[in-house]
């Protein structure tokens, strides 16, 4: 039996990811401008809550059917985004694009909820943790679980490489002012798309790029909010979530 404390720790980690995603959404809302990755933050928030509930019974919130509907919708959403990226940029968007990893994450969550057989004597999808250790359910179609786990660890390794390279930054400003040619994931996940009308009116000196950068980010030392809204945080959340998801898939094979 997998120790319960290990599952609890991972559940706590997922809640941290959910909290960070929620904070990003709130900050973006308060600014009335926010990252173009609001859909990703919403997906991370929901996945964090769902995964925490799956890892630890006490944190279970919604029934499995509700999560199936939710992740069915997020999967459809990211599939549409990927399809649109592919139309614009060719098949490369499928592998290296900004939405493809999120499509895999959403698909993996949907699969996990659809394919999970309730553990013997367990309570179904309302959480699998126990006090002494994990009473696991098992997944139907384990080949699919393995395939998802492989892709998830692959994306995590790729993301970590890109995070430690020059593709992402923890400072929104530096990325927003990146030169032409910066890669698309950085673009997609760092771009601050200011909504029409939200820029300070009557400021002829403000360049479009300046308007797009959060005010804190323009200071020499980026504020916490700027760091929180940075693409590095999004990708960091994705890495943590991807590895934890792979862990869950593998232990339920």
């Amino acid at each position, binding site marked *: *039996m*997998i*120790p319960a404390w*290990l599952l609890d720790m991972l559940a706590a980690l997922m809640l941290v990811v959910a909290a960070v995603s929620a904070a990003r959404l709130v900050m973006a809302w308060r600014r009335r401008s926010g990252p*173009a990755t609001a859909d990703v933050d919403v997906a991370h928030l929901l996945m964090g809550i769902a995964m925490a509930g799956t890892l630890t019974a006490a944190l279970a919130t919604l029934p499995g059917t509700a999560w199936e509907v939710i992740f069915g919708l997020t999967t459809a959403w990211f599939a549409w985004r990927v399809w649109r*990226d592919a139309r*614009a*940029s060719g098949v*490369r*968007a499928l*592998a*290296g*694009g*900004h939405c493809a990893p999120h499509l895999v994450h959403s698909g993996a969550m949907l699969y996990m909820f659809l394919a999970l057989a309730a553990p013997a004597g367990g309570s179904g999808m309302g959480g699998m943790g126990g006090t002494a250790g*994990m009473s696991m359910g098992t997944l139907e179609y*384990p*080949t699919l679980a*393995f395939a998802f*786990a492989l892709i998830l*660890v*692959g994306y*995590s*390794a*790729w993301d*970590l*490489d890109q*995070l*430690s*390279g020059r*593709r992402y930054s923890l400072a929104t400003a530096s990325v*927003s*002012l*990146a030169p*032409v*040619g*910066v*890669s*698309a*994931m*950085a*673009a*997609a996940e760092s*771009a*601050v*798309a*200011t*909504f029409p*009308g939200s*820029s300070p009116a009557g400021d002829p000196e403000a*360049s*479009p*790029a300046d*308007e*797009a950068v959060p005010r804190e980010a323009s200071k020499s030392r980026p504020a916490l909010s700027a760091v929180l809204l940075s693409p590095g945080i999004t990708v960091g959340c994705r890495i943590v979530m991807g*590895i934890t998801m*792979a*862990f869950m898939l*593998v*232990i339920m*094979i």
Partner: protein
Amino acid sequence: MSDIAVVGDRAAWRDRAGAGIQAGSATMDARRALQLALAGIWLLDGVLQYQSFMYSKAFGQMLAGTADGNPSVIARPITWDATLVEHHLALVNTLFATIQVLLGLGIAFRPTVRAALAASVAWSLGVWWFGEGLGGVLSGAASPLNGAPGAVILYALLAVLLWPSDRGTPAPFTAARAVGVHVARALWLVLWLSLAWFALTPDNRAPQAVSGMISGMESGQPGWLAAIDRGAASLVAGQGLATSIALAVACIVIAAGVYLPRSAARAALALAIVVALVIWVVPEGFGMILAGGATDPNSGPLLVLLALAYWPVKTVTAATAERKAA
């Protein structure tokens, strides 16, 4: 104006983002790509180590079982290690799994790649002895079909060959960049000739040896994989010697392949990839991951990675590699 930040024109931003996708993913150093694949396999390895099976007494017994047939100087530390694991199962196994996940993360994270690769060599050697009983090399249990010479030693080999340094001389393939052409070719030769040797040992060339090994992997596998195993087992039933000879010949051709001209080398490496994939799917059953209880994905994917590291490329020098990285 920034190419990224756009005000009030999402469509324009998306177009530019799309253009960036192509620019961003067009270039990646081949060695870095292989390092990332190795990182991914370490991550998978670590995740597998967290399975329920590893937290049961069966894991300690499995470790103890690798001592069988080994000389006592090798076997005694394995038995001690297995006892230690059995007594502190939750703690030790969690530590093992976490170390392997950290190795994967460390290789994928650029600033720590050297430290992680070095640590992975040390860890692999330790696991090869204490966890795999030297892959059965000394006990006579080793076979190319069951992961000889021990999957974990291939991690160490890959870490050495993918070490992020260049010798300055032009390298005709990625594996030669860190250790040089002669050493890299010699390592490949030793590996595949040893596999040819193991294929021909008396235990492995017995009439029912290969079919028995394959049919033994059926248990717990999904239906489609069990069907493949059944078909393969019946195909080679009673043909142990012929199968072993065919496998040994293939291994010898592959071993010599890296010394051949580019086109022939490519053919030999393609054969290596095919052999590795067949081994991974049929006798290794994806490392038994789908049946639960696998400690690693076994040797198949690592042999594929190795073959890719020897794939002839446009001559790589330190300067061209730096330009690509930049």
